[in-house]
């Protein structure tokens, strides 16, 4: 299980550079869509690192009291 968990997620930083650096400043609408795109990519990556069986995993996380 340790081995399967230590798999490094694929880096998806490429899309950030896909926009030509020389492009004029994006209009607010375009910026918003780039931001949305960034969130989608982030969520795609996180889908790949989330523990499987969310419900069971969260239910099993039971702690003893602390300070």
């Amino acid at each position, binding site marked *: *299980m*340790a081995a399967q*968990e*230590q*798999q*490094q*997620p694929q880096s998806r*930083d490429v899309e950030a550079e896909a926009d030509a650096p020389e492009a004029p400043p994006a209009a607010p609408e375009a910026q918003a869509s780039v931001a949305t795109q*960034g*969130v*989608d990519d*982030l*969520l795609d*990556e*996180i889908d790949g*690192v*989330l*523990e499987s069986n*969310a*419900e069971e*995993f*969260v239910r*099993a*996380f*039971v*702690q*003893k*009291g*602390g*300070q």
Partner: protein
Amino acid sequence: MTARPEGLPSDKLPVGGAMRVMGSETEYGIHSPSAPGANATMMSARIIQAYANLTRQRAAGGAETRWDYTDEEPLHDARGWTVERSAADPSQLTDRPPVLDAEAVALAYGRQELEADGGDESGSLLMNMVLGNGARLYVDHAHPEYSSPEVTNPRDIVAWDAAGDLVALATVRKVAADPDLPAINLYKNNTDNKSVSYGSHENYLMPRSVPFGDIVRGLTPFFVTRQVICGAGRLGKGQDGSTAGFQISQRADFFEAEVGLETTIRRPIINTRDEPHATADKYRRLHVIIGDANLSQVSNYLKFGTTALVLSLIEAGQAPKIEVHEPVAGLQAISHDTSLTATVRLLDGRRVTALDIQWMYYEAAAKLGQETGVSDSFSGDGHTRDVLERWESTLGLLGSNPAGAASSVEWLAKMSLLDGYRNRDGLEWNDARLGLVDLQWSDVRPEKGLYYRMLSRDRMQTIVDDAAINRAVIEPPSDTRAYFRGKCVSSFGKDVVGASWDSVIFDVPGIGKLQRVPTREPLRGTEALTGQLFRKHATAGAFLRELLGLDPTPPA
């Protein structure tokens, strides 16, 4: 580096600003997915043991040292009395080493394994270590806890607190590398969302001359509201998290009193535990239990930096003169309102938001910084100005464009991720996947921890760089007694039989009895004062002889 006004003695810090002797404590959530019923105290001991094995490899003679319990006084109340042991909750008796009975140890480890690597010479389990960076790593109740070394400023606390997360990561890797043991995960959070909470504490050194009543009055409105800048965010409301929704603070729902000695039951906004771990007639150590554990460096920085500023206001008699009506209810109402529009009633009748109260404290702190000169960009203390600027800009963003603070304020960062999932997949707040996002946010492994995934995409601002954090895993801060403690452990580990916040105990061949070196002044034992001695001597005997003025070693 810190600018030191000329003429200031080496054991004094500039007053009026964000510099102060301080430290952090983090209890990590602990879980083994493949062995969900495993005893938490046993697993925590396994974690400490893993680090002992790692440091043994790193430092010849062993960098791990036993904790010395002589000066622990968990039942001393800052209001001036001591609780009878018989009247205390068993969890308050933190001045006795935890004992694992033989049966429990055998259950968790098996005799042979214990003898092979689990125990020290006396056959008992190592539950408590002093590290070469001056920190303490130990089993606290049912969690592994890292207590940072004492530092003098909020930037250093970010580095040495984050170093604890790397220590935790190292232990997780070490356990995972053992094919015979179930892997253990550690989480830097504060609740299991099933009615249990565990703490992340702050400690601040104050002059004992400040009346405790002033501290209570000055801090309570600040503590009720500072969560808007340093809350870590939590899915679910109520102690068991059963009410759907998202709230600002991990800890708010677990607080039930305004002032008190307890830390595990009836938790108070202001904790009165009075263990100075220093010269008791000069200092008090303010033990703060209301904070969330922070992964966001900016939230952590502001948590310590602004609290240090408010303590300076209290010491100067310049804290805002306000009192919140029903602060415990206010704390929870503010935590439950991510729109930041909830109001609390002040005793003078005004209704104000958390941001209003934070601005009152900011204005007072900015004024005091200016009056004392510590916030001056050239002649100031090198920290106060930066804390004030970040505090001001963060409050400004929270008031105008909260989404803009998602790269710095932890609860907003976590909420942005949860909102992303809710929007993309149409999830309700009580969906288990959102619960997993909340939990896994704080996994200490960078490939699994969602905070670290955000960090790697430059979605989180930082205060200190990775190199500084890596250094802080090994090196103690140079400007407090933690330097002396850490250097004793890393240089003379095999001759150090015990250490605590205010002592290091040596057992050196040729020096008859145990030598206990007291370190009761937190700003002594610094590199400036003792670095030369460490560089000069290769053996503990020669070091100690010069330090204590024992019979000089005959010239070689």
